[in-house]
């Protein structure tokens, strides 16, 4: 930033005056204010930062910080003339730059240094375009390619995101229409109490009838989420749904019901959503006026409160009272999200407010159900081919189960994974190619800044390709195309199998995500035959059979296989019908499943006819019948066996984890550490680790011999932090200072030794000069370093300043390892 210097001959400047001042316009005003306070003490907010910053030390002395953060400057300095260095660092906000249509315009303002490094970066990342000498051209190319990659990402992600959104909305469709029906009924009831006549409607006070007409119809919605973040999404959907049905809908959140601001805030927020134009005052009569002015008054006003339990009870009850007084003029219907139990309003609201509510309960889908929908859409039925590795899936699962518990955050994690994939994987654009379904054409790499040769090289250098296709020497576009087609096919069949397995155990309260993690495992018991390098089915199944039997009692896949074996006829039929749908793309299975369905249908027909016969049967014929029934049992068992064999075969032949397929890196995200780092910033730990292991980060030569010793060359804050470890939760400032000082002074012992040695060996004048400069640091500088280090530890929140009770101690706030 630019630093402007102004000389002010009196020692006062107020912050309010500062901006004008920078423009050089209102010096007078500054001086006028200065004369007002000629007491010799000058309160000013001014830019001490610049004094520290520029190294150009100011000509004034700062003697005191007042608690408000003001500086007191002694008047002595004013006689000398006070140099105040103002710079943008102390502005609350600045505009760094405005958008430039052409990038090159702006580059000229940057330093030459950054520009050259940028060129180096570019050529490094763009080996294909080395012949382009012009930096600008390369830059604009790079920008173009990154835009293309961005587009590819957006296409892939939006296809996933929109299908997830759709499925979540669909999942709520029934309950939404139920709510809408109730809203309509409630509205009709309100209207039946009486519509205010013209005279009544124009009065600025409510219409009063009997007590029953004061009731507010209230829908208590059990959201059954863990995090209210998910509720927000649901309520937003509900709002859109009701709006599309013609209702007037407003959303209020618990922030609007805070005790700090009173009921005015929520009224203002409510009015803001209906009435256009600026509002000076918020009054419910304005809402009534607004409602009267609507074209047709056939629609209710629905007010959705996201999380009723987080609202301030008194404000909420006041709000309810107000609404109930006005309900005939503003037919309001409340929908309140409840996170715990339907008893919540009883616990939160006073009884007089409760009496005004006419409540009804609605229940949304539970979180595991929603999660299953999301996983199914995102990974199993997805429209884009993007997927995640086993490790990533396990991480995301743990993140969901142990850390977050919200569907929204799970989707967000998936988006981060997808974005990271697109920013790190140079071949990511192939996902876009998959999406567009141009199977018979080699992906157009050049529009993403990769020549075809480069793309082929990248693809055939992928570890998965190298380990599977050593023998193929002819590396052409067709080979890549074949590989990709194969990849797509195997991925598709994997999804088919997972879907079939999931159908089989759906009823058992099983999470699809768990099943997916198991099915993705490239080292799992079922994946052994898909080991990279032997994609052909092994002729001898004994090894996998052994695995199979070993793991028999474990895992969801085995559970699914077992369950298929034990299903009763009618459920088996339902399952097979579902499979029939899923297996369409694999004719081999499709036909077998079809045959099974037919035989089961036949079985069922027989069973029904038997049941009918049963009634008419005489005792004498029972014997024969039992034989017949046994036959049916046997048939069922045969069908079970067949289905079980089928699923077994399916798992072993087609459930190839994506990580076992050549070229899978193109569509499979695997940088789980990167994902974790982006998702969960471990602030508290990382700051302390930075201070402890600073050497690993800055890689200096002076602090390399790190053991447990504290070296004086370490950053002061690191020294201080390490020293603080020896203290308890409070640190005596004096002791801390003394140990800091001894560490700092130990440098000079070391350097003295070094000096004498260097004198013996090579007494070059240059060296002598440097060593002689290393004189003992002054007491003041050690103290200043100590103070600065404490300030830095305060900024990072690791220590707190002494309080009045313990003026000589600092409080430690974090306890690192």
């Amino acid at each position: 930033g630019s630093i402007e210097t102004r000389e002010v001959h009196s020692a006062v400047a107020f912050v309010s005056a500062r901006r004008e001042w920078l423009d050089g316009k209102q010096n007078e005003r500054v001086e006028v204010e200065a004369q007002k306070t000629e007491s010799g003490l000058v309160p000013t907010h001014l830019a001490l930062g610049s004094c520290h910053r520029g190294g150009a030390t100011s000509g004034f002395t700062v003697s005191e910080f007042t608690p408000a953060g003001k500086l007191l400057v002694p008047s002595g300095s004013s006689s000398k003339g006070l140099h105040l260095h103002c710079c943008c660092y102390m502005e609350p906000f600045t505009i760094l730059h405005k958008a430039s249509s052409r990038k090159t315009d702006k580059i000229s303002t940057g330093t030459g240094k950054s520009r050259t490094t940028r060129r180096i970066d570019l050529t490094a990342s763009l080996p294909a375009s080395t012949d382009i000498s012009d930096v600008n051209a390369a830059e604009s190319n790079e920008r173009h390619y990154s835009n293309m990659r961005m587009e590819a990402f957006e296409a892939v992600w939006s296809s996933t995101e929109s299908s997830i959104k759709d499925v979540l909305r669909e999942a709520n469709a029934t309950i939404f229409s139920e709510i809408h029906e109730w809203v309509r009924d409630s509205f009709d009831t309100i209207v039946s109490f009486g519509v205010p006549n013209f005279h009544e409607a124009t009065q600025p006070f409510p219409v009063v009838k009997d007590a029953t007409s004061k009731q507010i119809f209230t829908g208590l919605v059990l959201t059954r989420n863990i995090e209210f973040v998910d509720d927000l999404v649901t309520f937003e959907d509900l709002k859109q749904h009701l709006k599309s049905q013609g209702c007037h809908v407003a959303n209020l959140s618990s922030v609007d019901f805070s005790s700090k601001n009173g009921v005015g805030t929520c009224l203002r927020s409510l009015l803001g959503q209906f009435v256009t134009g600026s509002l000076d005052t918020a009054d419910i009569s304005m809402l009534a006026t607004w409602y009267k002015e609507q074209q047709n008054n056939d629609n209710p006003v629905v007010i959705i409160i996201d999380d009723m339990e987080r609202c301030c009870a008194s404000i909420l009850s006041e709000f309810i009272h107000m609404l109930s007084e006005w309900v005939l003029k503003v037919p309001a219907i409340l929908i309140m999200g409840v996170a715990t139990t339907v008893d919540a309003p009883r616990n939160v609201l006073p009884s007089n407010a409760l009496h005004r509510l006419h409540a009804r309960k609605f229940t949304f889908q539970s979180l595991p159900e929603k999660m299953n929908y999301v996983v199914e859409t995102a990974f199993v039925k997805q429209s884009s081919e993007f997927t995640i590795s086993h490790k990533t899936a396990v991480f995301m699962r743990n993140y969901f189960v142990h850390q977050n518990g919200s569907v929204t955050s799970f989707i967000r994690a998936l988006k981060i994974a997808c974005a990271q994939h697109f920013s790190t994987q140079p071949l990511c654009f192939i996902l876009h190619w998959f999406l567009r379904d141009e199977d018979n054409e080699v992906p157009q790499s050049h529009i993403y800044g990769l020549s075809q040769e480069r793309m082929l090289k990248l693809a055939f250098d992928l570890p998965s390709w190298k380990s599977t296709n050593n023998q193929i020497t002819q590396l052409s576009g067709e080979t890549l195309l074949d590989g990709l087609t194969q990849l797509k096919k195997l991925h598709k069949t994997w999804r088919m199998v997972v879907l079939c397995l999931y159908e089989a155990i759906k009823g058992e309260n099983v999470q699809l995500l768990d099943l997916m993690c198991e099915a993705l495992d490239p080292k799992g018991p079922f994946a052994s035959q898909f080991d990279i390098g032997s994609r052909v089915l092994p002729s001898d199944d004994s090894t996998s059979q052994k695995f199979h039997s070993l793991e028999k009692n474990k895992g969801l896949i085995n559970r699914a296989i077992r369950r298929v074996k034990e299903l009763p006829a009618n459920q088996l039929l339902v399952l097979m019908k579902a499979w029939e749908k899923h297996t369409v793309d694999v004719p081999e299975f499709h036909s077998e499943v079809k045959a099974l369905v037919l035989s089961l249908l036949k079985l069922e027909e027989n069973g029904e006819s038997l049941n009918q016969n049963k009634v008419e049967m005489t005792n004498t014929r029972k014997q024969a019948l039992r034989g017949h029934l046994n036959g049916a049992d046997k048939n069922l068992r045969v069908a079970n066996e067949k289905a079980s064999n089928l699923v077994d075969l399916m798992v072993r032949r087609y459930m190839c984890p994506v990580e076992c397929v050549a070229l899978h890196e193109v569509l499979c995200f695997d940088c789980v550490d990167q994902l974790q780092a982006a998702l969960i910033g471990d602030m508290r730990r990382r700051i302390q680790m930075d201070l402890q292991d600073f050497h690993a980060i800055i890689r200096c030569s002076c602090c390399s011999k790190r053991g447990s010793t504290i070296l004086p060359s370490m950053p002061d804050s690191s020294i201080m932090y390490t020293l603080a470890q020896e203290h308890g939760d409070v640190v005596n400032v004096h002791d801390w200072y003394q140990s800091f000082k001894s560490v700092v002074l130990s440098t000079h012992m070391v350097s003295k030794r070094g000096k004498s040695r260097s004198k013996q060996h090579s007494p070059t004048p240059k060296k002598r000069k440097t060593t002689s400069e290393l004189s003992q640091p002054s007491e003041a500088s050690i103290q200043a370093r100590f103070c600065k280090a404490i300030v830095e530890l305060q900024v990072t929140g690791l220590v707190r300043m002494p309080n009045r009770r313990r003026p000589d101690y600092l409080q430690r706030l974090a306890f690192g390892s």
Partner: protein
Amino acid sequence: RKAKLFPPVPPLSFLHSFWSDGEQTPESRTFHSAAFCRPAMEINDGEEEEEFEFSRNYFLAKELGGSSKKSGRKISDIDPVDEQELRTAANNLEPKHEREVASLMESYKASYPEWGFMLRTGFGLLMYGFGSKKALIEDFASTSLTEYSVVVINGYVQSINLKQVMVAIAEVWWDQLKAKRRNSPSQAQQPFNSRSIDDLLAFMDGQEADDDKSFVCIIVNNIDGPGLREPESQHLLARIASCTHIRIIASIDHVNAPLLWDKKMVHTQFNWYWYHVPTFAPYVVEGVFFPLILAHSSTAQSAKTAAIVLQSLTPNAQSMPIESLYAASRERFLVSSQVTLNSHLTEFKDHELVKTRRNADGQDCVYIPLANDGLQKLLPEINP
């Protein structure tokens, strides 16, 4: 092991009970943990170990603090140097590892394209790690975000008027919009500074832009700084950040900074994407408003301050013995009336040279909040 040492902390135990209790009424906010089998592979095993280390350290530190003999040494025993000298020294400190810090900063340049990509995909970038990140973020913005307008908010400044900031952002966005479609007639605009916050938010969130990919980038240096620490400020920032045409890059330094936000803000509004970028650059501007510990509490310092105040007062006030009451002052012809005394006392009170408190009988008493040694140092200075 953990359970023994670590009594349940509310937020965690809250979650844990949800995951572990299968037995809950259907009405309750249930999650059937039974539905999830044990994880096939615990990736964060090592982390739990570390977490355990942290909690152990906490108890060790507490124990140490309680049991060990506390050192009774005072700050004044350090014998702090003169404040002016201290500040001069503090301003002229030689930075350590300057070269390494510079090359560390340089090394982050390789990540600029990725940061830009993440920003454009809609995430807010949250930079953390030891060292000032102001220069780094602003360098990133001025090299990689030239096609977007960039507004910088400095959270380390003591007070920030976010409404003003919003007006500035809205103006910048309006300029950007105007530049995009030069030929279209610019519609009549209400000046931004007279609009309400909701209007401004709606404008930044609006669908007016032809291409919805363009945005204004906001850099918030120290979003956890003193000027923005109020919940209201954070809520407003979150609402700004969630606007369609706004992207945010922020830096945090305080270990407890994440406590400023709830999950709604983190996951849906700010939409943070964490980057660990330690710079080890000195916290210069960030530390401006923190007092230097040795400049603050020493008796010499307060004596000096007192001397400065006293010297600059009228002669009568200077020579007045502070502990004397009105009668004594009158006796010595220092003041002629109660009003004059009061005006002197008010002056002293304003500069905290005297304070008043009420004694057991309910009388107002004046006292000097300086230590004895401070007074001793002071007297020779004002009576040479």
